[in-house]
């Protein structure tokens, strides 16, 4: 792969703006359809299938893609696919919405009242530095096996990014805009609504996306450890019945769920944010440091 590609790419890279002919361009496909990427995934699946069929990969724990597919169809037809996925999706969304709302309100409060920031932020920083996952056993201990405990776990962990990003975003509101608000004698509420919230939107969005990822992870944790329902519990059951192909089905589906939720959130952001604010918020998380 690399030799062919480098041979073709080398002369063109001398002049930076030169465009390399892409597979997609050759067939007049729109740019956002990533033909190479999709082909790579398909190739991976095909290679896996060939390895299993040719008995190179004989382990029971690597079932052939066709076996995974038929297990998936089976599971879907007897109804043991929709219910766990629905449960996990519902818990993720409910927990994420509650956590984001609480995080946003607290963040706006701490960000807009300086005394509150002075007298509370250090506490927030200390509690934040305790890895949130350590509160999972505590919540499990206090609330026992219940849906409530699962939602609390999701809420506690996924609220932090929004809270912290809102506070830090409000600290970086452009000084000129702050002065404008003062000149126009905005009330505190007007300042938050008209200046702080719009200019903090990209950072809040990054927080929302981080929180969403955590919410899915933690709802599965909650189902593995606390509440016997949803995809997490389905995974456990498949493990105990030693049905690797069913496990793969659930893992792939939860990955697709995460992919779709992330894409949906990005779509909303693309519509809701002004073009100037987009670049930051749409960056993959992690790159925004």
């Amino acid at each position: 792969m690399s030799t062919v590609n480098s041979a073709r790419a080398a002369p063109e890279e001398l002049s930076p703006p030169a465009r390399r002919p892409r597979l997609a361009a050759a067939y007049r496909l729109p740019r956002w359809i990533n033909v190479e990427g999709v082909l790579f995934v398909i190739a991976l699946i095909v290679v896996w299938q060939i390895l299993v069929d040719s008995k190179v990969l004989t382990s029971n724990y690597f079932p052939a893609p066709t076996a995974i597919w038929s297990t998936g169809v089976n599971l879907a037809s007897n109804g043991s696919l929709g219910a766990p996925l629905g449960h996990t999706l519902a818990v993720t969304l409910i927990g994420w919405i509650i956590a984001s709302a609480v995080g946003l309100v607290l963040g706006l409060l701490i960000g807009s009242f300086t005394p509150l920031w002075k007298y509370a932020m250090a506490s927030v920083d200390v509690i934040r530095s305790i890895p949130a996952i350590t509160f999972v056993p505590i919540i499990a201990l206090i609330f026992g096996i219940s849906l409530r405990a699962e939602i609390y776990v999701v809420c506690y962990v996924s609220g932090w990014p929004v809270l912290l990003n809102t506070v830090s975003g409000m600290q970086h509101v452009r000084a000129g805009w702050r002065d404008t608000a003062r000149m126009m004698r905005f009330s505190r509420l007007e300042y938050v609504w008209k200046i702080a919230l719009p200019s903090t939107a990209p950072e809040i969005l990054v927080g929302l996306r981080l929180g969403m990822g955590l919410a899915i992870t933690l709802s599965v944790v909650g189902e593995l450890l606390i509440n016997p329902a949803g995809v997490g519990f389905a995974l456990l059951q498949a493990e105990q019945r030693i049905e690797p192909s069913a496990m793969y089905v659930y893992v792939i589906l939860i990955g697709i769920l995460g992919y779709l939720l992330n894409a949906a959130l990005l779509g909303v952001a693309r519509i809701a944010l002004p073009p100037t604010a987009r670049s930051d918020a749409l960056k993959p998380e992690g790159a925004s440091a």
Partner: protein
Amino acid sequence: MTATTASTTGARDARHQQRRGRETDQSGIPPLRGLLPLFIVIVIWQLAGNSHSAYYAPPGRWIPGLAPLWPGSLLSGIGQTALTWIEALVLATVLGTVLGMMIGRNKFCDRLLGPFLEFCRVMPSSAIVPIVVLIAGYTIRMQLAVVVLGAIWPVLLGVRSSAQRIRPQLIDVGRSMHLSRWEAVRKITFPSVIPGVLGGIRISAPITLVIVLLVEILTQIGGLGALMSVAQQNYNSAQLYGLVCIIGIMGLIAGWGVSYLSRRAERYWAGT
């Protein structure tokens, strides 16, 4: 805001800055008096809490609660968690840097691996644990695989974006000096992506600790996470809160350590 001379403008701006600084004094490290609410909660918990409560053991019982674990299992738990954390962080950094440079410098690689990596990135690490356990068993290797898969993304994405932003002139310099592929990577690409690596490590260090604990809690194969899990199953809330405090202190030390090391590294590479 119109000033007659540059110097008065400067002075006025400085004064203005200073005043504004005082009014919205919300930058940098929050003052220590902000610890007050936490302190009050802990004092009230100690004074008003039921000292025999099974769920809300007051702070005074936390240290005695840890006593049965001292020293053997507590120290080995701390050691195991810290070791896995460091190993996973190093592995994730190395792999993330290599992969990030690859897809950042090569558009074809980027598009080729894009969807696959995106799918791996959004995959919740908790969902992979059972399947990797099945494949690799309850081993340290399994734990490392899961943690690295979850912790690699900040470094990978940071390196990719700084590799994409290398100035084209710099690449041309390498070409005109007939550097070999390896030399070009070592002398041009790698030094340019160091900020991305360091920024990525700073983000992924706490994430890695979380995933290490997550795997330990889920699989109970050792470390502080396993100790917590056992304490929870025994309804030993005092011990549980004590362990949370220890993990919190570990998290703080880890955070300081990583930011200290990355500052040192930044200065080292900025000097050359």
